[in-house]
């Protein structure tokens, strides 16, 4: 099959959608398909051979934050050329409801179009307004995929219809076989946080507030913080005597992140909201590490309502502290959950997720081969 993937965001900047597109492209190549990815790129850094540059991305305010997207006549011409030269059986757009490359590709496409929606958007008013403008173009999409029940609900609420839910994929073995870093372990137990450290929604402040209590109950405990952002501001939140027990690893490579998740005794996800899926929870489960997460709906669902990990009351530092202390103390409480999680996580492996996406491609191509318009 000749498959064209369109990523609206710069591939050289890490992010959930970008990672998803890259992993999907590699999984599809592994299945023997022809794959080309059209994406904006920041500089002339080397890109995998299957990536076609669409031009620079410009930062624009969109939907309450800054999105780096590319558009304009030059980009539109490149999109048309990519479609013409690629002669694709199907194109697969990501996040087509944003003012970006995906929308341009949708506009110009004449082959069957599959689209994946990643966000679960709380700002419903903005999306309702744009829905009426977008509707004529969105009508060109043959198959719609949502990455989670929440992304699906957002979609149904604003646009209607019956999107299919296919979760984000993870290369489970990359996490299960990641290197254990003895030098990152503390004298006692080790915890890990993953996410931007200066974005309050990721919940690091909550974990740092709970940390003194955790350190008191579990002497020698160490916290690994994986993620970019302003370190000094975060450090100020930790009492001076405990600062050497909190290690900021900064922005890491994917392999280092996998090692961190594999090394620690407990992964903590204190996110306070705005998550539609929770891919890091899956990654921690794949690494065989116990998970403690806030009880926001997306996380509860990923954790099988408590079957694969433990929850604490969202935005409640005291409850977070209590649950961490309980889990660190009781190795037996973590064991069975971890085993259940390792088994459950297989269905998020790319080998199974890519197969389901290919089924979608086959369904839409089958219907279009009879007549294309």
């Amino acid at each position, binding site marked *: 099959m000749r498959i064209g993937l369109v990523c609206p965001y710069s591939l050289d900047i890490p992010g959930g959608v970008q990672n998803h597109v890259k992993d999907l492209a590699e999984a599809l190549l592994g299945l023997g398909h022809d794959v080309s990815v059209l994406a904006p790129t920041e500089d002339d850094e080397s890109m995998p051979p299957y990536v076609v540059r669409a031009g620079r991305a410009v930062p624009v305010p969109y939907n309450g934050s800054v999105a780096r997207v590319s558009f304009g006549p030059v980009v539109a011409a490149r999109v048309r050329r990519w479609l013409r030269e690629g002669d694709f059986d199907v194109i697969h757009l990501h996040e087509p409801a944003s003012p970006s490359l995906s929308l341009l590709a949708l506009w110009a496409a004449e082959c069957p179009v599959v689209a994946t929606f990643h966000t679960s958007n709380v700002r419903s008013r903005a999306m309702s307004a744009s829905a009426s403008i977008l*509707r*004529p173009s*969105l*009508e060109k999409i*043959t*198959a*719609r995929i949502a990455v989670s029940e929440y992304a699906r609900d957002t979609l149904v609420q604003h646009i*209607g*219809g*019956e*999107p*299919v839910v296919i979760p984000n994929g993870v290369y489970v073995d990359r996490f299960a076989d990641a290197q254990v870093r003895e030098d990152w372990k503390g004298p006692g137990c080790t915890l890990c946080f993953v996410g931007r450290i200066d974005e309050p929604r990721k919940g690091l402040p909550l974990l740092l507030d709970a940390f003194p209590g955790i350190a008191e109950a579990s002497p020698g405990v160490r916290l690994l913080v994986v993620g970019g952002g302003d370190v000094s501001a975060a450090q100020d939140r930790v009492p001076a005597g405990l600062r050497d027990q909190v290690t900021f690893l900064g922005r890491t490579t994917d392999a280092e992140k996998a090692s961190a998740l594999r090394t620690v005794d407990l992964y903590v996800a204190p996110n306070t909201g705005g998550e539609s899926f929770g891919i890091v929870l899956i990654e921690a489960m794949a690494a065989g590490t116990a998970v403690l997460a806030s009880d926001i709906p997306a996380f509860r669902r990923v954790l099988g309502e408590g079957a694969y990990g433990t929850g604490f009351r969202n935005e409640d530092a005291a409850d977070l502290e209590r649950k961490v202390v309980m889990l660190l103390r009781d190795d037996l409480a973590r064991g069975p959950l971890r085993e259940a999680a390792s088994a459950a996580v297989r*269905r998020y492996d790319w080998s199974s997720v890519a197969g*389901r996406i290919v*089924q*979608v491609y*086959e*369904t*839409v191509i*089958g*219907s*279009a081969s*009879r*007549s294309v*318009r």
Partner: protein
Amino acid sequence: MEWLWLVPALVVLLALGLWLSWTANRLDRIHHRIDVARASLDTQLLHRSGTALELATSGALDPARSLLLVDTAHQARAASPEDFESAESDLSEALRAVLADAAEVTGLVTSPDVGPLLEELADDCRKVELARRFHNDVVASARALRSRRRVRWLGLAGRAPAPEAVDLDDDPPPALVAA
């Protein structure tokens, strides 16, 4: 100079005409998409009942279950357009009943004789579900557009009957798609 007012009036009329014809075009395109999606669903359904028949006659199942599958698969293939939803739902239910035992299904999937057939059936079941959803997705957009005032008042939808969503039970046997 009084004729000058005609110019803006003509421009407005022209724009209105273009807008209406664009809407009519959109509708036409959507109706065409529904036909394509429906044809795709029919193909997937035929494929599924064909694989079910093949499984029933493969000898891998006991006679009671084989008979049940042959019967429901035949009913589904022979159903009239009015009854196809219930006939296909019956087939889904029969498949779930026949392949209810998870341990047995896992064994069958790994066996060299019927393994490929069961994999094909799993693929068919998934694709029926996908095709049904994609069909209903287009139907939903069509109904939204047809309910617009300009479409209703000016009869832009022509005489095409209002499209109907396909309502059928297409849940695959859990053990089959988990394997």
